[in-house]
């Protein structure tokens, strides 16, 4: 079959995958309307959303390519030489590109692997070879625009700022290697996810914990991108600092990707400042990485092609020893279910794991402080609780995964609110424990963290209860599908704002009070009172929620039916 025809078919498959990735957000939920117009709008949304995501990613790459070269290479500070600036710029661009492509890949490749659409092509009169090739082309279409933009924009920016054609060509080589590494890593992570996490058998608490730990492999790159996009300037400076000793004391860094390409580009652009051995190491390492990339490309191609013939999901089958179950109370049942779902879903796991991970990373900034006092503690608590208030919408969206079934279960609004608020609060408490542990490790005082962090649990609980209350009020009837909760930004923001007010008011009040009152005991008292007040108000509101309480007539009817043996006692 001709390449153009295969490309066209791959386009149809890609559209279906894009649709499924959006449609899955509504799966289990109820579509607002079953009319054809609505579905057509959903299909159009899916296509435009995936295109928009690719365009945004490409724009960020272009902006980043020019910004990083402009801010360091062009604007000579006199502190770092031009050659070292180039090393830093090229290295940090490659590292960030790798992260961005992996994260983008993880999001869409999940749908690509989970979709059976490639396997369904086997039923059509197409050769196996063509189906394999369509898989590969379809995979390429997920990344096409960002890959193309990256390999054009940065070399172009490099040429503009340095005027070196040879340097630009080295950069092209580095970007090619980076892109291949990103595709291979994405594929490997997707395979890992399906074999060790999604398809993992067993239901013990230990296995759930183990899956959560394995999920870190999936989650850390996502957090990496968050760090990279937020602190790219600091990272660039850090990379610069790494490059400096290499020229004088150590050759090791020259052999490490992505520095080898940074050094090679610098070497051919600014032909001074590097000895012969450094030049050889940088060039040899770059060639080795290129060879590795070719191998990785072959492996990726082979793996992607295999989806067309055997599918991606391989489920495990363990020997079942018994069929005993351990029912618990409703609250514990919901929390346990949420944890189990999260342990098999990267997006949900990331929400639960990232707060603790982020706290650990940020806590090490305490190492530069003489002591961890009032200001540092409250700053950290604000960061931690900002993440905590994002949790309720995500936790409620788990209910949407099978709402078409789960809504038939006898579940009360209050139970659901308390379960979600408890889990969100526990996530905050775990972050607090991590913060205490890191602070103790750094041998700093934990007094403020224990005092304010402990009291702040009340505010976090109150905030998550208020958000849960709003979510239940808004979506109890229409269902908690992700598509319903996150579709309208205004709705989502309206849920977060009250939560933010509840959680930040005591903190901001304490900070303001501390400016005018020197007595920190008084500030602590105010903080505790405000937090307690928030908690009492939130608990009162949840207690007042309308629960379709049974009236006297209904209670009598049910009692009579039970006496007649017509109703069971549950």
């Amino acid at each position, binding site marked *: 079959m001709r390449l153009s025809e295969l490309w066209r078919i791959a386009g149809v498959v890609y559209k279906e995958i894009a649709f499924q990735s959006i449609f899955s957000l509504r799966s289990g939920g109820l579509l607002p309307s079953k009319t054809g117009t609505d579905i057509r709008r959903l299909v159009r949304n899916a296509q435009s959303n995936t295109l928009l995501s690719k365009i945004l990613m490409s724009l960020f790459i272009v902006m980043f390519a020019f910004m990083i070269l402009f801010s360091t290479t062009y604007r000579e500070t006199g502190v770092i030489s031009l050659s070292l600036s180039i090393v830093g710029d090229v290295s940090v661009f490659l590292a960030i590109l790798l992260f961005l492509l992996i994260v983008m890949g993880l999001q869409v490749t999940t749908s690509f692997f989970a979709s059976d659409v490639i396997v369904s092509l086997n039923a059509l009169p197409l050769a196996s070879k063509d189906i394999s090739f369509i898989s590969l082309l379809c995979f390429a279409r997920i990344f096409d625009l960002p890959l193309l933009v990256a390999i054009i924009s940065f070399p172009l920016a490099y040429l503009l700022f340095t005027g070196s054609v040879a340097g630009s060509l080295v950069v092209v080589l580095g970007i090619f290697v980076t892109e291949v590494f990103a595709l291979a890593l994405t594929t490997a992570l997707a395979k890992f996810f399906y074999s060790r996490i999604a398809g993992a058998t067993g239901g013990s608490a230990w296995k759930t914990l183990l899956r959560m730990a394995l999920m870190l492999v999936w989650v850390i790159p996502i957090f990496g991108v968050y760090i990279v996009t937020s602190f790219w300037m600091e990272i660039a400076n850090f990379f610069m600092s790494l490059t400096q000793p290499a020229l004088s004391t150590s050759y090791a860094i020259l052999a490490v990707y992505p520095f080898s390409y940074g050094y090679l580009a610098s070497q051919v652009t600014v032909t001074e400042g590097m000895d012969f051995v450094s030049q050889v190491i940088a060039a040899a390492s770059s060639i080795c990485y290129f060879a590795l990339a070719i191998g990785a490309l072959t492996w990726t191609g082979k793996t992607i092609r295999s989806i067309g013939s055997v599918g991606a999901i391989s489920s495990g089958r363990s020997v*079942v020893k018994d069929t005993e179950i351990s029912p618990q109370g409703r609250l514990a049942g919901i929390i346990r279910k949420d944890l189990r779902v999260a342990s098999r879903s990267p997006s949900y796991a990331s929400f639960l794991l990232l707060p603790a991970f982020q706290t650990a990373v940020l806590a090490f900034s305490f190492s530069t402080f003489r002591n961890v006092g009032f200001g540092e503690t409250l700053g950290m608590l604000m960061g931690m609780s900002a993440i905590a208030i994002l949790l309720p919408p995500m936790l409620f969206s788990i209910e949407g995964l099978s709402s078409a079934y789960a809504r038939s279960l*006898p579940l009360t609004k209050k139970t659901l609110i308390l379960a979600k608020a408890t889990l969100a609060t526990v996530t905050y408490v775990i972050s607090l424990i991590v913060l205490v542990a890191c602070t103790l490790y750094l041998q700093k005082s934990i007094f403020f963290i224990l005092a304010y962090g402990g009291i702040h649990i009340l505010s976090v609980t109150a905030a998550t209860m208020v958000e849960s209350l709003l979510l239940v009020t808004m979506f109890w009837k229409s269902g908690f599908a992700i598509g319903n909760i996150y579709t309208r930004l205004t709705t989502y923001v309206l849920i977060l704002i009250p939560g933010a007010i509840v959680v930040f008011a005591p903190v901001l009040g304490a900070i303001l009070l501390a400016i005018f009152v020197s007595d920190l005991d008084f500030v602590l008292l105010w903080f505790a009172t405000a937090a307690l007040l928030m908690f009492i108000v939130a608990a009162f509101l949840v207690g007042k929620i309308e629960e*379709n309480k049974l009236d006297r007539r209904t209670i009598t009817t049910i009692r009579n039916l039970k006496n007649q043996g017509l109703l069971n006692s549950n």
Partner: protein
Amino acid sequence: MLLQKKPLQPRTRFGSSTTNILQRMLRKTENSVGRVFVERAAVCVKDLVVSYGSFIAVDHLSFEVKTGEVYGLLGPNGAGKSSTIKVLVGVLEPRSGSVTVFDTPLAEEVAVKSQIGYVPEEVALLDALTPREFLEFTSSIRRLDRDTANSRLGKLVAAFELTPHFDTPIAALSMGNKQKVAIIAALLHEPPILVLDEPLIGLDARSSRILKELVAYQARKGGAVIFSTHIMEVAEKLCTRVGIINKGRIVGEGTVDELRRLVRKAEGSLEDVFLKVTEQEAGIDEVIKGLAEE
């Protein structure tokens, strides 16, 4: 009353172990409920209207299901069967009308849902969980105690041969096995009302037979079953009464005999009656002839 005259008995030629399990299950429960039940309205639907935007899926639909009945909801695709069932189990909000379960209005969500076991048409369970984890969740929500749940579960899992798949994520199960998980979840709390939306789709012959026996038994012990199916033979054999829905309205209701009398020209089978009352009979011969000519 078709089935009350000729109730289904476990007369199958399954493997002896399966028959024994099933018979033990039925006998034990039969002994425990070996009393004459009072016939009364289990589910009462009045003037139900369900709409999706401007599209009316269910149009002022009314019917009643009594204890001891297996009520079959029949209708062509898109007739409104599943929408009606989703309202009964609290998954869908009606635009208007009333539904009561043992005289309890549907608004009393928890009380009503506690008495219903539901098998949805599209088995959208929590795919990330294994059957064990899923059933633990539903049992927790239904507040089943450990011993009671495990005693019932062991028998159901063995009867439906789900043991080898008990720790496999639901996402990786076949459609039939997913259906079995949903059926077990619906039966585990021994609800007085079973609402089954196309429950036989995807089931193997053995499991299908077991489910049919369980449905018949549910009615005999004084429970009620609302059963939606496309398979006319199943409805004919299993259902005490049948309601035929077309374009969101009940167009025929009664026992199969009553429906035959209602539609004089129907030759006898429920399929003929069904095609007649849903006005789908016209043109079938021409369509078949046209296809054959091609």
